[in-house]
């Protein structure tokens, strides 16, 4: 039952977007988010929308998958929209009881919803087209200047990749523990919320004990394979910027510049 959880929402493929260097994609997402927050009026939002649409078409990711990612955020999106509709001053369109809907409020709400949707879809597009390992490698490489400030960049990246590696193993183990406790007569399905929460204890305790034991064994195994931190470490797959990466980054710069210019003219 737990095995059905999809992890690291990565859709393997071989498009230009998939082949981009993970660092390029990370940078582009940051640029895109900044650009979104600088958008002011319909024209700039139109440009941002067109940009994302092009990337979606290039990546061959189905729109359905992207909208699925938006679903959990539906409540937040609706909430911000409602707040904006009712709490913005301006030309009044409708008024009843203590509520007042303004023209500005409607436009603001529309922009906010659009902004959140574009932001979330843009970020999802990156995780959909980049394998978790590549993403970790990219992050490590991008953050490496922070090593000079003694920020543990390598250690964080290592933690992330080990966590990703052990998620399926621990899920499998949880499944086994649930079955074992059920076989001993544990009841997870009845009772109120407190009772059910309490029923989780016999699952969590063995899971944690086993996770600690695994961590201990893994540490020894890593030491045996000469792990001694990030110093002097090389990589099987070296990250390399190619022409398409340079082009994409230039395109990102143009997008950002364009949005800033449009903002200047209030568009």
């Amino acid at each position: 039952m737990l095995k059905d959880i999809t992890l690291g929402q990565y859709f393997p493929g071989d498009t230009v977007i998939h082949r981009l260097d993970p660092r390029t994609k990370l940078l582009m997402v940051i640029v895109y988010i900044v650009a979104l927050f600088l958008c002011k009026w319909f024209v700039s939002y139109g440009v941002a929308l067109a940009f994302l649409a092009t990337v979606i078409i290039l990546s061959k990711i189905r729109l359905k998958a992207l909208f699925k990612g938006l679903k959990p955020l539906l409540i937040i999106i609706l909430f911000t929209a409602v707040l904006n509709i009712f709490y913005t001053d301006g030309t009044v369109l409708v008024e009843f009881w203590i509520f007042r809907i303004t023209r500005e409020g409607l436009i603001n709400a529309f922009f906010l919803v659009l902004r959140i949707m574009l932001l979330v879809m843009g970020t999802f597009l990156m995780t959909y087209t980049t394998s978790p390992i590549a993403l970790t490698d990219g992050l490590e490489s991008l953050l490496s200047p922070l090593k000079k400030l003694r920020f543990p960049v390598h250690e964080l990246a290592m933690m992330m990749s080990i966590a990703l590696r052990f998620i399926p193993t621990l899920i499998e183990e949880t499944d086994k523990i649930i079955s074992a406790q059920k076989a001993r007569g544990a009841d997870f399905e009845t009772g109120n919320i407190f009772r059910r929460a309490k029923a989780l204890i016999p699952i969590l305790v063995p899971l944690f004990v086993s996770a600690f034991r695994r961590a201990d064994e893994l540490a020894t195994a890593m030491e045996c394979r000469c792990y001694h931190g990030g110093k002097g470490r090389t990589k099987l797959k070296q990250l390399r910027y190619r022409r398409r990466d340079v082009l994409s980054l230039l395109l990102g710069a143009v997008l950002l510049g364009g949005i800033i210019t449009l903002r200047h003219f209030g568009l």
Partner: protein
Amino acid sequence: MAVQKAVTISDLHFAYPSQTEAEPLRIFDGLDLAIDEGSFVAVLGHNGCGKSTLAKHLNAILLPEGGSVHVFGMDTKDEDLLLDIRRTVGMVFQNPDNQMVANVVEEDVAFAPENLGVPSGEIRRRVDDALKAVGMYDYRKHAPHLLSGGQKQRVAIAGVIAMQPRCIVLDEPTAMLDPQGREEVMRTVERLNREKGITVVLITHHMTEAIRADRVIVMDRGKILTDGTPKQVFPQVELLKSAGLSVPATTQLIYALNEAGCALPPDALTTEECAQALYAMLKA
């Protein structure tokens, strides 16, 4: 010059600090052992006899309290040699799940050479060679949790071979595997020993695996009980039983028949040899 010694242990003393009692838990009190380079040694013993502790001394995971451990002439106490020692003596553990670091097979095999700072092109070559040596090359892009136990353990072995070690220590590598996985791992280990000349130290409690080694060392309470070729060791049925070990089914059968008055050769270890001996007796 005689064969070089892969491992030389002299007068090893070691104890684990005990958490419940004041007395530390003594494991070794003056253990001496030498292992020739290129040999295939099986270490047998009951639980808690010190086999795993011994294994951990061979690549400086544990350091001796007294006496010394030398691997290929390097003293494990010398901290400057730590990486050289660990690269020379690779270690494979019981649970394959708990020794894999990456979530793609080839990335995992690349872990050790990456740590050693080997250039990318060379890592690629070593990873491919190591995966081919254990017969897992076709699975290089797979996620480890989708492999069978035997396959995972072979990947773990490949991860060690990628360091190009001269000796591999396997600490009960087949304990969690099904018979098929056990056979896969044993074949891989034997091939590495024969074809690449890698010294193998196999810690096990499966008698059928120990029969395949050149030399069997039986341990009991931190001491070497008996040491020799399988044909010398296994006929000592009473001694082995006193150490809480069972003997191979073939040896058990011959022992029982000889007790009952037959005269069978006690060193017929494999099923084939045993069947031959029985055939010869029945024919006579």
